């Protein structure tokens, strides 16, 4: 009986924890406000092997424009690889005290790519990039913020004429291969994740409106 009660207690706790992640509670963020952010190369759950570095290269701009110092992503990636962490999966496991001592970042942004790529459905194509991210304070390990963004774009071929539609789809495919629609979608998804969602990151210290978004 006692045991049963405890289980009930536990499940209530878990529900509360999940509940806490979603509301716009910035208390910890205010308290451990980061000046500098280290972006670890994203974990890739999509089937496109290019996703990690495509998304990694799109993170610096929105974060810097939001007002943070962003460590040079490619340099850090190279540095971690040379120091025994060859994959994003291993980099995501790096202990925070090491990040503090070796890199000196205030916070780490862990990004997971849930979806990345273009799908073709006979005459239509749809490009989707879906990202989930967590910002963690390096000194305490406390999660300061988390966010999710999905960007999708579909293009369909010409109306009723099936031949025209098929030609359009074929052309789209050619264009997609050369200009890389998925990468453009990643740029949009990253910007959305950092600053355009309903639950964005707060303006950082270099932003002219730093602290203007504090409530």
């Amino acid at each position: 009986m006692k045991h049963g009660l405890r289980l009930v207690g536990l499940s209530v706790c878990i529900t509360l924890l999940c509940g806490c992640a979603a509301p716009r509670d910035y208390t910890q963020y205010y308290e451990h406000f980061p000046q500098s952010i280290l972006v670890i190369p994203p974990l890739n759950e999509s089937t496109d092997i290019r996703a990690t570095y495509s998304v990694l290269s799109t993170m610096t701009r929105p974060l810097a424009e939001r007002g943070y110092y962003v460590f040079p992503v490619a340099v850090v990636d190279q540095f971690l690889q040379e120091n025994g962490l060859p994959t994003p999966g291993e980099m995501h496991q790096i202990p925070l005290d090491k990040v503090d001592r070796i890199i000196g970042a205030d916070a780490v942004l862990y990004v997971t790519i849930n979806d990345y790529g273009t799908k073709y459905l006979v005459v239509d194509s749809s490009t989707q990039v879906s990202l989930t991210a967590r910002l963690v304070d390096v000194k305490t390990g406390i999660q300061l913020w988390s966010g999710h963004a999905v960007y999708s774009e579909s293009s369909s071929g010409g109306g009723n004429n099936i031949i025209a539609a098929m030609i359009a789809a074929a052309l789209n495919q050619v264009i997609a291969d050369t200009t890389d629609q998925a990468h453009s979608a990643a740029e949009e998804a990253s910007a959305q994740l950092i600053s355009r969602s309903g639950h964005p990151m707060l303006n950082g210290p270099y932003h002219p409106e730093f602290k203007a978004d504090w409530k």
Partner: protein
Amino acid sequence: MGGCSSSSLYYWGHYDEQVYQMYNELDPSSVEGQVEQLENDVRKAQSKGMPAPPGVRAHLGFLYYKLGKYDSARDAFIAEKETFPESSVLMDRFIGKLEETP
């Protein structure tokens, strides 16, 4: 808010584009070409009276290092640190490594 809007905090030039191309091997230009492009970007930023973004000087330093131009690499890491003191721990580490390099 958007990187390309007039309210942009930084003059971006080719930095993030180069990072993408580097990994996807889309960029046919050599490391020398990338260096030239970023050096130009930093100069252009100055002439426009806008700051160059965080990381670009450190990235340049990394490219100089690849070319064996260790003095230029050190100068670039120092420039990153002076522009953005947040990078000091990492830049000092790189500068220290360069000093060990014969």
